């Protein structure tokens, strides 16, 4: 067959032109902006001036400006907390749910399907619904927590600087759980059942089976879920826009939202692009490590 195919000159020319078409698009509209963003972060940008692509070079001044701002420290801590806590909670809850729905009981797959409704909802709408749930005076979350005596007085989730970040994280976990559960379910389903049977015959209890079989077998899937979760959390924008817009007093501000606010609300594009460059580098590092470690194949 191979000798036959060799008779067709440049047999793959058609296919290659198809791929080049798409890659060119991505190069122009994603690759160039990526580079342009780095260039912007070293320039002094004034949007009021006549449109131009080349502007005065200012070296690291934009980065010094951003880090010199009083809110920089808070944003840094918030971003780490936002990504770290969202990831941890999403994975724990997602894993528990995946284990639950891997059991055999009526309507298991139908109920798992319902969870995915949370995944398909536009982030902005999810944020708006949670804003109503979090309402301080008449919100249902306060009501439920007080009914169950977990709270003694109402918390103003979104307007209290001590709570606003955690409120956003809670909503983000809600949004992220279905995807985590789905990927972990697939990983669980791929573990051969006879491993469990053998362990059961040897008298291993459920906890030993989980630690001895499930966790080691899920190592690759867990790695993928952590990397994807980190990327998705660093992409999260809509929820913050709907819930707190980084406030009050930057108490729930995270880097990606700060960058957008700087560039598109106060039009300090120099500062916004500096923050964006740093975050983009971080996202790219996670993405590259992840894609390399999973042999180019696993990413939704």
């Amino acid at each position, binding site marked *: 067959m191979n000798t036959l195919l060799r008779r067709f000159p440049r047999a793959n020319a058609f296919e290659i032109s198809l791929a080049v078409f798409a890659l060119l*698009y991505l190069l122009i509209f994603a690759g160039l*902006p990526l580079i342009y963003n780095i260039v912007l972060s070293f320039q002094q940008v004034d949007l009021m001036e006549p449109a131009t692509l080349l502007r005065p070079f200012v070296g690291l001044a934009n980065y010094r400006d951003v880090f010199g701002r009083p809110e920089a420290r808070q944003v840094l801590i918030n971003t780490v907390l936002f990504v770290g806590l969202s990831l941890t909670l999403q994975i724990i809850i997602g894993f528990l749910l995946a284990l*639950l729905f891997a059991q055999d*009981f009526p309507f298991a797959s139908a109920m798992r399907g319902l*969870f995915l409704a949370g995944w398909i909802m536009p982030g902005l709408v999810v944020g708006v619904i949670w804003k109503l749930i979090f309402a301080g005076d008449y919100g249902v979350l306060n009501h439920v927590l007080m009914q169950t005596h977990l709270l003694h007085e109402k918390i103003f989730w979104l307007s209290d600087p001590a709570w606003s970040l955690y409120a956003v994280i809670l909503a983000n976990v809600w949004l992220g759980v279905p995807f985590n559960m789905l990927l972990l379910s697939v990983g669980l389903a791929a573990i051969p059942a006879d491993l469990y049977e053998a362990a059961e015959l040897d008298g291993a209890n459920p906890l030993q089976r989980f630690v001895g079989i499930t966790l080691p077998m899920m190592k690759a899937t867990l790695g993928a879920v952590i990397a994807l979760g980190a990327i998705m959390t660093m992409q999260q924008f809509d929820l913050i826009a709907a819930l707190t817009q980084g406030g009050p007093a930057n108490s729930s501000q995270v880097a990606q939202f700060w960058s957008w606010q700087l560039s598109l609300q106060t039009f300090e594009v120099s500062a916004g692009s500096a923050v964006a460059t740093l975050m983009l580098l971080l996202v790219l590092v996670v993405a590259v490590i992840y894609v390399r470690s999973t042999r180019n194949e696993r990413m939704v």
Partner: protein
Amino acid sequence: MKRYILFVIALCVTAVYMFPLYWMYITVFKSASEMFQYPPSFWPQHPESHLWQVFSERGMGNFLWNSLVTACGTVAVTVFVGTGAAYALAFVQNRWTSFAIFTVLVLQALPSSLMVTPIFTAFKALGLLETPRLAVVIAQITKTLPFYIVLCRPSFVQVPRELRDAALVDGASPMRAFFGVILPLAVNGILVSAILVFLQSFGEYVYARSLILDDQYQTATVGLSAFVGATKIDWIGIMTYSAIFVTPILIAFMLLQRRIVAGLTAGALK
């Protein structure tokens, strides 16, 4: 017995998870006085609804139309450009294609909220903001195209190589082999991926909010955020707006749920 205990546990967990959706729908039917009472009621006492009133007062027709236009534009270009690429990256295997797949996967991770800074600045300089919906489509495709290629590629990988080789030996051109033999076999995967891209683009917010400066062309998500940002917050109206906006998305998803899940997991763990 154990099966029923598990069933009850799962039912409770699902109910807790679905509560925000329930709360949205139940608020739609509450009356103004019931809305702000504490403790809140879990079932509307005097059900009423203002679907049509909210729809017309908020100009939802125009917002939804703009969302539909940008989402359809995005899907059309994504499918047109992405299908061929997914096929090529599935069938041709060499150093270049594996580098291309690597690039596509990495590009998928770029957050819109960060990419919008250079895109906004460049589009402004190039005059692309004069055609705002086109600007959003162009920007959004950079996000959906990698997603689509990754989702779609497995359905081409499944197609046996021999089918293409046989067509070529029979004298078909590579283009005919693609359109006549391979494409029909991958149609399912293409459809599911296209629907996911559509649902994603229909709820897109960052680019619409940033690149569309004229209210006339704003999408439904931006209309919703303006509604929430108003000084006097009208929760019943907002939840009615949200319900009108997401119900079609939820119905489409529920109808296609099985296929979407299968497509997603194949794309994720191939």
